[in-house]
């Protein structure tokens, strides 16, 4: 720990009452630390705590003691839940909070089961449930999910998830068949009693994957991607709305409203003020494939509760968007960079913000040479990815694109798996996302949807100096101002991990391998 007068005072007062001196918490005896060991607990939009999942000591010949250490949003330790589960074969997939209960979703790789445990806010256990007989599709998805660097990547293989539904419980998704051809959705109450379960039509010709995106009003909203086969690159996006109480499908509409459109769907929300569904995504050339090829621009579509289109607005990269691009951004557009949309949010002021990051694929000379020497085979990749600048698009309530903000950052390289060289830009963006190649980390929102901030990492290098890692932060919201803050990453720790935090803060966890110590701190953003 860095010596500061304040830490010296803490040392002097060690034997005094446990005073809360700073917004930090230092844990000792941490032998190993991965980013996924610590995850934020959300209540609505805001981070209200953290859970650390750790393997403790042996419980008996077959089981270990696993610890769920819970902290509040100020990093004060709340309590520890100890569970005894198969040694070395138990992982936490997800923690979630629905306003009245916590749910922890585990994968027991020894028994090949998914297990859920729920607790009330006093951490009294409410229920537990083991889901056995996982389909091959479930296991296939789980495998990919556990190997993904960024498990929130989304895309076509959306992973196994547990989604909080305030007032009702938790929704769990699953995959049917050996090739994950269809989906299942089931809702459980806080005691894990199942209320309803829906499953895709066994006789459906297409592959279907459904990801729940939001519990809004009376709806459970989701994005359905349908395609002809598991490896088919031709996909169609559908907007799905379910009655949260009954699971009845109220809406299942393609986002494409005519045969002359090719659209992908990034965000599907419900505007309770206007009683309209809002779809945001990208549009493509008629011959191209959504999600696969390079898109032509962004679109925003609005639909009535009856599913009828209300309005459509397209924003072309080279038209509306280019016109608003700052001069310094135009070079990157001409340099063939395309955008990966990380987040779409709607503010309380009715404005919509789309956060994107530029990337492109370039041929890798060495990879190509190795490929030729191997007679075209081998595992060397012939292409590599490049990740560049951040962009924020702002659309006013009248659907006019009002500004494009450009935040330059140092270009970083991404290694692409073999065989990806001939894929389209859209699909490569999904792969890069799941590999954790993008610098975007997360977006934070306050409960009122009046303030947002996008957090990313930048590797900056001043002339004559060593490269320095910075946490970039773009803040915007109801006050109409865009502010940028730059936090220098500490150089002392073996690793530093970045997590979302309460509004106006980020949480940095510094791991010191030699000292087996983890220091967590809440860093107030200078916005």
């Amino acid at each position: 720990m860095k010596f500061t007068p304040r830490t010296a005072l803490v040392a002097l007062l060690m034997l005094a009452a446990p005073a809360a001196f700073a917004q930090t918490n230092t844990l000792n005896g941490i032998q190993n630390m991965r980013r996924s060991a610590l995850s934020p607990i959300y209540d609505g939009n805001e981070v209200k705590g953290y859970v650390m999942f750790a393997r403790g000591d042996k419980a008996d010949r077959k089981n270990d003691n696993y610890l769920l250490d819970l902290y509040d949003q100020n990093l004060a330790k709340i309590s520890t839940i100890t569970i005894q589960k198969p040694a070395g074969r138990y992982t936490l997939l997800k923690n979630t909070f629905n306003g009245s209960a916590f749910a922890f979703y585990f994968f027991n790789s020894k028994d090949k089961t998914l297990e859920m445990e729920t607790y009330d806010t006093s951490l009294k256990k409410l229920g537990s449930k083991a889901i056995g007989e996982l389909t091959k599709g479930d296991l296939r998805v789980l495998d990919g999910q556990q190997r993904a660097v960024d498990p929130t990547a989304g895309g076509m293989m959306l992973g196994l998830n547990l989604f909080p539904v305030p007032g009702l419980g938790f929704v769990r998704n699953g995959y049917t068949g050996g090739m994950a051809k269809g989906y299942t959705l089931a809702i459980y109450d806080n005691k894990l009693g199942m209320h309803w379960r829906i499953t895709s039509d066994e006789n459906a010709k297409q592959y279907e994957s459904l990801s729940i995106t939001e519990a809004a009003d009376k709806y459970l909203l989701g994005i359905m991607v349908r395609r002809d086969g598991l490896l088919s690159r031709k996909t169609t996006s559908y907007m799905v709305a379910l009655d949260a109480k009954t699971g009845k499908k109220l809406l299942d509409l393609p986002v494409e409203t005519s045969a002359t459109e090719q659209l992908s769907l990034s965000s599907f929300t419900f505007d309770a003020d206007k009683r309209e569904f809002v779809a945001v995504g990208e549009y493509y050339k008629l011959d191209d494939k959504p999600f696969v090829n390079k898109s032509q621009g962004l679109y925003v579509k609005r639909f009535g509760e009856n599913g009828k289109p209300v309005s459509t607005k397209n924003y072309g990269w080279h038209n509306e968007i280019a016109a608003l691009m700052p001069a310094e951004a135009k070079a990157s557009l001409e340099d063939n960079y395309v955008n990966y949309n990380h987040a779409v949010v709607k503010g309380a002021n009715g404005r919509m913000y789309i956060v994107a990051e530029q990337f492109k694929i370039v041929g890798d000379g060495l990879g190509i040479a190795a490929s030729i020497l191997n007679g075209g085979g081998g595992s060397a990749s012939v292409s590599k990815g490049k990740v560049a600048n951040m962009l924020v698009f702002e659309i006013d309530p009248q659907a006019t694109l009002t500004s494009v903000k450009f935040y330059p950052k140092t270009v970083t390289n991404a290694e692409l798996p073999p065989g990806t060289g001939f894929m389209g830009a859209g699909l490569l963006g999904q792969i890069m996302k799941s590999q954790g190649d993008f610098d975007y980390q997360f977006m934070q929102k306050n409960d009122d949807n009046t303030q947002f901030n996008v957090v990313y990492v930048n590797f900056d290098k001043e002339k004559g100096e060593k490269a320095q890692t910075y946490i970039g932060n773009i803040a915007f919201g109801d006050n109409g101002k865009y502010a940028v803050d730059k936090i220098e990453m500490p150089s002392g720790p073996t690793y530093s991990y970045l997590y979302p935090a309460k509004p106006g803060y980020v949480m940095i966890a510094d791991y010191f391998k030699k000292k087996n110590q983890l220091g967590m701190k809440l860093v107030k953003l200078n916005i």
Partner: protein
Amino acid sequence: MLRSTPNPRISTALRLLCLLFLTALGPYRVAAQDAAYRPYYSSDTTRLYQLAVAQRNAVKAHFVLPKTGTSDYRDHYRKVVQETSDDVFNSIRYSALLDPVVEPFVQRVFAQILKANPQLPATARLVLTRNPEPNAHAVGNGTVMLNIGLLPRLENESQLAFILCHELAHVACRHMENGMQQRLLALHSKEMQREFRRIVNAEYNIGSQVKALALGFSLNANYHHRQFETQADSLGYALLARTHYEAPQAYRVLQLLDTIDEPENPAPVALPTYFSCTDFPKKFGVAPAKPASIFTVQKEVTALETSDTLKSHPDCGKRMRYVQALAKGQIADGPQPASPPDFARIRAASRLEIIQSWFDYDCYDHALFEALQLLPQQPHNGYLQAVVQLSLFELRQHLQDHTYFSVVSNLSAHNPATFNALVTTLHDLRYDDFKGLSACFAQATGPEDAADEYALAARYAASALAADAAAPATAALKTQFEQQYAAGRFAKLLFPAPPPKAPGKHR
């Protein structure tokens, strides 16, 4: 007619009279300012270093390594002595207060106790520390460490004398030596070692079993510690009774200690008075209160906290009853008459030292809180005004450097509600707010005309908050400060050398 036109002749005479009055008052005001207490500072740390080294050596010399016992026990003993002596060195080197007002006063009280009790060890020493927590403790070699934070909480010299007598009683009874020996012997006893081996060999649930063993060990140690406290109260009372100080005050000390964790001043800080003005009409405490936590977990309390018989110190109530019996009912009960002038002066000086101590320890939230609590009583105190401006400056600096977390406390049930209210405000502040806060505060407290380091540092801080460090007026103040106070208290803090840069790793 409600207003009359003043007679010009009378007006001129009045003006002359006022001028004469002000001329007469002028030297007095200057004298009053000269007499105003300022926290002690010396850039020469030679005395501190020498004292720290001497005490470190004294601790090492005092704790003689036992010739018996296992090698583990002896190694552990050596390690504890090393750590204790290092702690003593650091405490003295970085926090001993050798000022010309408070320190001689407490040393005089200490000397009178020793004089009245010649049987006490001749090696007994008192060190006054700048630690703001209200506490005192004894070190095994006969040194008593008295925190400055305790002094304002006492009402008179006799109460201070009892505190020192209590600590000297620990020294006389060799409680530190005995306590350490008992703990180490218990830790290295055959029974404990056997139990520890059994747990480790058991292979399973080691963590919880070691935790249970440690708790049992702590309970046992606390049991012995309680006995020491009762002995120290008893002997401390006897030592006090031999002095000219009032022995009944011992009871009152325990009464005060019983409520020492409660704030001395329960009044909320008047934030709107100082930090809201026409140019910066900030509203405080109007944000809708959000639930602090989604958790409704009852705080985990250990047996050490729940059962009085298992605490290291007996409850003050029990100690009071015990002392009452010792004093045969001759006790000072309830608030005592206003402090005698000498002691009142010491309390007042200590309060300012405490504020400075919080500030020097980078606890700007505490420094700000204490200064704002004192300001209504001393609205023209230039030092308090300076601390507020300097704290705002440092807070903004840390916000800019993303180290705000290290200088602003967390909300905590251990804090007084009034302090938590200030901390909540500090958490909500934005960078631009500090400019407005500083300007409003300057308006509310009026111009500061003192000519000392604190005032100049505060003027620089206010100027930097109003504009930026590169502005001509701010730069001029910086130059002036560096010329006048190059070796001053705030030189390194306000104008630090830029740290070297090094790359970090991020995952």
